[in-house]
């Protein structure tokens, strides 16, 4: 095959392979659709879905100004100003375009399939990025890796309609454009970077990662003495345009000029301007003058910067870091100060198993790729190195940030893997012919290189020193030139000293094993995706003893009941985890939801759950609560239920109401968290406990065992006076209680309940 036909074949093959990769990426995310149905997953996606529906139905302006009175009752929520609208706008645009061409696709299906579609694009941008770092074959590998890596699939399966679904594409693509901009120094690419940065800002709070990584890259290049006009043009364009655009998002607003997270970008921008100015001045004055100017300038700037920053942060113009970011740097911070952040499972640190589970063999090829980047060390490789180091730190601190690590792991592992393939698939005799010849030549010259070098250096030194009296300077330059020369020589000999792999058996050994590892990687990814990341979590599946599958659909059952059986403006209280789902599926008013912006309100709900009936009834009445919804897994052994989350409710409530809720009172004297006979009185009297185990004992005829906590329950269950059971789903997973109205006869509800049960008050006699 001639060279031309090879390149033609490659030109056809590459797009084909890329399309196939995209198809694989999409189809491996469809497990949940095939197993269950086209349904929105989990919690946050339900809110995004609900807002997207609103956007499609009422148009953009209405969405922008939407005040949602159905959440955070009685406070409400300004939706337009508190969301990242990127994902909703994206799906609305797709929906409208499809409808324009008369494809009547339901908005739900657009939302469900959005993340898989974008994963195809992510794979493509990984290809582009890696191509800039090595070559297109490494790019194809990176695309394939990123397409199926479980670390990314975990947040982008069909139905997982969340910001991350499109944000990872935007992250990778923005980085690609940035590298392209730095390489070419064109304002065009700088501008494109800024535009995609804007898209990213509109889509995900993780844009802060870009805002810090890109300036860090620029700063590092500056420190390495690699300042260039390319860098100046690309960074200045990116920062100026990107910042102005990002401020158009209401949720971001003036943060880029005020919060500390954005200060690094601003600082580097200023530094680059100063540096560029210094370069300009250098061209117009003598070196001596320049030195004085530089000293004066640097010290003045430093003093002004330090004083200014201190003043601004003390006067409060520059806000301190937000809590979530503190918890990234000071890992003990969240535990003490913000239980609500510590309570979220995706904010937990990452154990080694999670890294391996999400990335398998990529995780150890990744450092090898970083090593290769160090060997090349062009501007773009510096970027990948910085990205790797910081992303691996952040991924270690928070499970959720595995997502930002995954792209760089795929890129870097692809570089390592493709270099391995290059080394062991090189055509042997072809390489032998070209590489061995210069090798013998250099070997010869190498021997007398030292003797050769002396006369030349002497030769260059002589005319200089004799011509002018400035011997010292001439000597220095000559020595420098000498050093450069010998360095270059050493480099060329080192480059020439590459031998091919001689034996076919070593080649076969390496290639076969590597191929086998690739197979294993593909199996692993499929196994993980299908087993762990494809559960919609609103529909559960369990295997029964005879091997048949049982679908547990209690959540939707309960939400549907609420939707059909409560009045239009019914207020339902639950723990915040279920707020979005209730708003989206049951269309009821909620007190708190997954947008945890008001800690006090959440603590109030926690207090209502954790205190006795008398206290919590007052809270419930004050908030007009009609129903209380809880999750109870004791019957089927669902461990994510409210009794297991109860400690967090108590902790959050204690943070705001330290006198009314005390965590210690929920632990037995032995320090155990018990629900059975040994449970503390406070525990037994808490509303949550009573609701969870209300009539639970009756279900088993007084012999009940809680299957989550493996606890044998007392034969007589708790009594409820201020609430009555409204609905309990098939598997008891969701229980809904109605808050009783005040008694018509003016009795206390406790007396009324006793009376209804036929008990006569003993204290007073009429």
């Amino acid at each position, binding site marked *: 095959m001639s060279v031309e036909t090879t390149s033609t074949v490659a030109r056809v093959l590459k797009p084909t392979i890329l399309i196939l990769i995209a198809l694989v990426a999409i189809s491996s995310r469809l497990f949940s659709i095939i197993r269950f149905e086209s349904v929105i997953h989990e919690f946050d996606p339900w809110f995004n879905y609900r807002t997207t529906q609103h956007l499609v139905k009422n148009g953009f302006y209405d969405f922008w100004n939407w005040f949602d009175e159905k959440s955070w009752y009685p406070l409400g929520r300004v939706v337009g100003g508190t969301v990242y609208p990127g994902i909703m706008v994206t799906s609305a645009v797709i929906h409208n375009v499809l409808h324009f061409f008369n494809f009547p696709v339901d908005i739900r299906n657009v939302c469900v399939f959005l993340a898989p579609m974008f994963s195809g694009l992510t794979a493509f941008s990984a290809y582009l990025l890696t191509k800039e770092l090595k070559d297109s074959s490494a790019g194809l590998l990176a695309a394939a890796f990123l397409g199926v890596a479980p670390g990314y699939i975990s947040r982008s399966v069909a139905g997982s309609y969340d910001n991350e679904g499109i944000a990872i594409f935007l992250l990778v693509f923005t980085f690609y454009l940035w590298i392209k901009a730095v390489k070419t120094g064109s304002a065009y690419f700088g501008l494109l970077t800024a535009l995609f940065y804007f898209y990213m800002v509109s889509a995900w709070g993780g844009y802060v990662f870009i805002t810090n990584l890109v300036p860090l890259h620029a700063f590092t290049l500056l420190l390495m003495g690699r300042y260039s006009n390319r860098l100046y043009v690309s960074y200045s364009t990116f920062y100026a345009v990107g910042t102005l655009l990002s401020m158009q998002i209401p949720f971001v607003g003036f943060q880029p000029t005020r919060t500390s997270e954005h200060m690094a970008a601003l600082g580097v921008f200023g530094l680059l301007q100063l540096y560029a100015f210094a370069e300009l001045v250098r061209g117009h004055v003598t070196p001596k003058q320049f030195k004085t100017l530089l000293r004066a300038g640097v010290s003045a700037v430093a003093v002004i910067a330090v004083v200014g920053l201190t003043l601004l942060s003390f006067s409060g113009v520059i806000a301190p870091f937000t809590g979530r970011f503190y918890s990234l740097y000071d890992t003990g911070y969240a535990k003490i100060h913000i239980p609500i952040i510590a309570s979220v499972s995706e904010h937990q640190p990452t154990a080694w198993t999670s890294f391996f589970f999400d990335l398998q063999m990529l995780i150890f090829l990744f450092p090898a790729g970083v090593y290769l980047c160090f060997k090349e060390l062009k501007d773009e490789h510096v970027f990948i190195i910085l990205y790797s180091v910081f992303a691996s730190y952040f991924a270690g601190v928070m499970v959720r940030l595995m997502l930002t690590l995954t792209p760089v792991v795929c890129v870097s592992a692809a570089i390592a893997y493709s270099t391995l393939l290059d080394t062991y698939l090189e055509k042997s005799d072809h390489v032998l012919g070209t590489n061995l010849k210069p090798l013998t030549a250099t070997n010869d010259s190498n021997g007398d290189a030292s003797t050769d070098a002396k006369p030349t250096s002497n030769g260059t030194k002589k005319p200089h020193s004799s011509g002018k009296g400035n011997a010292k300077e001439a000597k220095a330059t000559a020595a420098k030139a000498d050093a450069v020369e010998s360095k270059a020589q050493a480099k060329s000999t080192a480059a020439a000293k590459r031998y091919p792999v001689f034996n076919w058996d070593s080649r076969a*050994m390496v290639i076969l094993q590597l191929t086998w590892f690739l197979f294993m990687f593909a199996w692993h990814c499929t196994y993980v995706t299908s087993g762990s990341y494809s559960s919609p979590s609103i529909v559960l599946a369990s295997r029964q003893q005879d091997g048949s599958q049982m679908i547990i659909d209690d959540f939707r059952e309960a939400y549907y009941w609420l939707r059909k059986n409560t009045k239009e403006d019914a207020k339902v209280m639950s723990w915040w985890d279920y707020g979005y789902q209730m708003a989206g599926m049951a269309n009821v008013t909620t007190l708190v939801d997954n947008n945890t912006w008001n800690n006090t309100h959440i603590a109030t709900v926690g207090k209502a759950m954790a205190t006795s009936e008398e206290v919590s009834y007052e809270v419930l009445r004050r908030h007009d609560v009609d129903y209380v919804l809880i999750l109870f897994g004791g019957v089927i052994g669902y461990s994510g239920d409210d009794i297991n989350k109860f400690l967090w409710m108590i902790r959050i409530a204690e943070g705001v109401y330290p006198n009314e809720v005390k965590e210690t009172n929920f632990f037995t004297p032995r320090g155990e968290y018990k629900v059975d006979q040994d449970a503390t009185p406070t525990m037994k009297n808490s509303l949550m406990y009573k609701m969870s185990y209300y009539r639970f004992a009756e279900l088993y005829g007084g012999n009940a065992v809680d299957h989550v906590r493996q606890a044998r329950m007392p034969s007589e269950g708790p009594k409820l006076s201020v609430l009555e059971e409204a609905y309990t789903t098939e598997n008891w997973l969701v229980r809904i209680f109605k808050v009783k109205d005040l008694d018509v006869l003016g009795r206390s509800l406790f007396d009324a309940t006793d009376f209804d049960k036929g008990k006569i008050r003993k204290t007073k006699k009429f």
Partner: protein
Amino acid sequence: MRGLSRTTLFSVAAMLGLALLAIPSSISSSGLASAQPAGEALLAKKVARLSAKASANKGIISLDSSAFEDVMSKPRNYSVVVLFTAISPEFNCVPCLNFDPEYKLVASGWSKLADKSQLYFSVLDFKAGQEIFQKMGMNSAPSVLYFPATASQSTQDRYDFGRLGFQAEPFANWLNARAGTSIKVQRPIDYMDVCIKIIGTIACLFTVYQLFTKAGKILGSKYIWSAVSMFTIFIMISGHMWNQIRNPPYTAPGRDGRPGFIAQGFQNQFGLESQIVAVLYALICGSAIVLISVVPKIENPTQQRLVVWAAMCFFGFFFSVLIKFFQVKNPGYPFTLLFK
């Protein structure tokens, strides 16, 4: 799960619990009712005695069983903080030793107050007051109980070490909220430490200044930076931050055939475990780097073959070990390489 981890929080808990179980629970609440309402004089006498004791010992009254009963006896117009601890070396109670100086710090902060708010700090060591430990149902140490002035012995407030930690500051805040005091913790300045730090900084700056040119070279060295970056990546991807945040034990005795360095549970790990994983990653990654960078530099075909085979065997072997390791953590994992 959470309840369990709380009980294992203090190393001494289990030991004390056993010790307490062993003692027959015959000792009833003996001296409690002895304090008769003998009037103001008795109370004033007791208060004077306590104040003298407290001021003699930097604000802390050390108790034994009888002294405890005496302090708790009625009439009582003061509140008491009692630290139940086990300082003696045979209990090997590390938290007790850690908390002891912090407690003293708070007590000395209290003794400096003008308004002492009728509060006393006291310490009851397990050795001196086993009966009281048993009577109060203490089975872990250290524990701090706060007895308000007005209420009887049964209402008490327990300081939560698990949540608030062993530092003096949160403890002082906790106490201020209850006793209405305004105790401020003033850590004594360790002049020796400060001196060492100042001298150290000056020495560092001096050496940096002396080695300025060399330091520039070191800072500019690609190899040092690559070593630092690779090292950081290796420890990060093997769960170092998890260890930092969760503080797991370094290793634990193995149970029913499980090796001691592997923690039970998928989302759990020991210090040693994550280090082993880091080394495994480094070995596999190292053999990949050998295959990429070292092999093409070998001129001799036989030697080259040897290196390739060795590196690839290394690669495969340690990858298999890693997968096996992972399988131990996640028993349902279906894939294996060399080890079934």
